[in-house]
């Protein structure tokens, strides 16, 4: 269960995401596929209690992205993001 006060910011996942993305993810703008809010990834609510990392929309709390490491693989599920605009 996610109580209201046990989340961090997208910033806290940036190290883990740096193994996938060559560019900084925290300043990237993403659109929530559920409510349409456009926010920096750093502003997402981040839950690290699950086996892996779950980023939720700061406006509607729907899941934006999940990242799970298992053995030799990382699973990235970003279906909650319509897009992520990275700064080149």
């Amino acid at each position, binding site marked *: 269960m996610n109580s209201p*006060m*046990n*989340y*961090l*910011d*997208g*910033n*806290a996942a*940036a*190290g*883990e995401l*740096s193994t996938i993305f060559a560019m*900084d993810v*925290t*300043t990237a703008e993403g659109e929530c596929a559920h409510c349409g809010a456009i926010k*920096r*990834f*750093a*502003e997402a609510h981040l839950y*690290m*209690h699950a086996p892996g990392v779950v980023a939720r929309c700061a406006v509607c709390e729907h899941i934006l992205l999940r990242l799970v*490491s298992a053995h030799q693989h990382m699973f990235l599920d970003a279906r909650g993001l319509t897009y992520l605009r990275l*700064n080149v």
Partner: protein
Amino acid sequence: MWRVGTVVALHDETATARTITLEVSDWPGHVAGQHVDLRLTAPDGYSAVRSYSIASAPNSDARIEITVERLPNGEVSPYLTQELTLGDRLELRGPIGGWFVWRTQQTEPILLIAGGSGIVPLMAMIRWRMATAGSAPFRLLYSVREPGAIFYRDELQTLSDHNLSIGVTYAYTRAAPKDWPRPPGRIDAKLISTGTWPSNLGPTSYVCGPTSFVENATDLLIAAGYSRENIRTERFGATGERK
């Protein structure tokens, strides 16, 4: 990409917090407000990763400082604050994050709000502001349990005594010094009205602390007329259950 840092200095900030200076030969440089991930690996292969904000200003000497608060049931912080010795090597990843940062090009008034060890990345901003003799006026509102829990106490005192462009306000939550005008308690609207900038000056705010602290401070700022777009937050938890 993991780098290796060598411990070159250790300094106790409080009874439970220690500043660790790491020399990282291939350090690419950082921006004030960024953090690093440290990875500790046990002989059996079990590893733990924790994020720590960089306390030092950007520099060119391939050294960074982090300040670590010991958590009572922590898995990593007791080691870092009690067992680590000079010459030890630590694996680290970073610098990380480009959002919760202050850059010298920013000339608007800056409001920093720290809860406990949330002061660390904000201190990097203050130090960078002083090192570059920038023009942005800074105000720091620093919430701590008690006087003995203040990090960088002497440095902050000197700055606020001798530099009119940096204002420091302390808010004590459990025990205040004798004759302190405000009874212990968390940051409230009155303190926001006296220790921050008027919202019409268009300040940018950086709020760092435990999640509940950040929520409370952010709500108070918005109630005081601050624009949410100009409030950047960094929350941390005692949890950090990461592998």
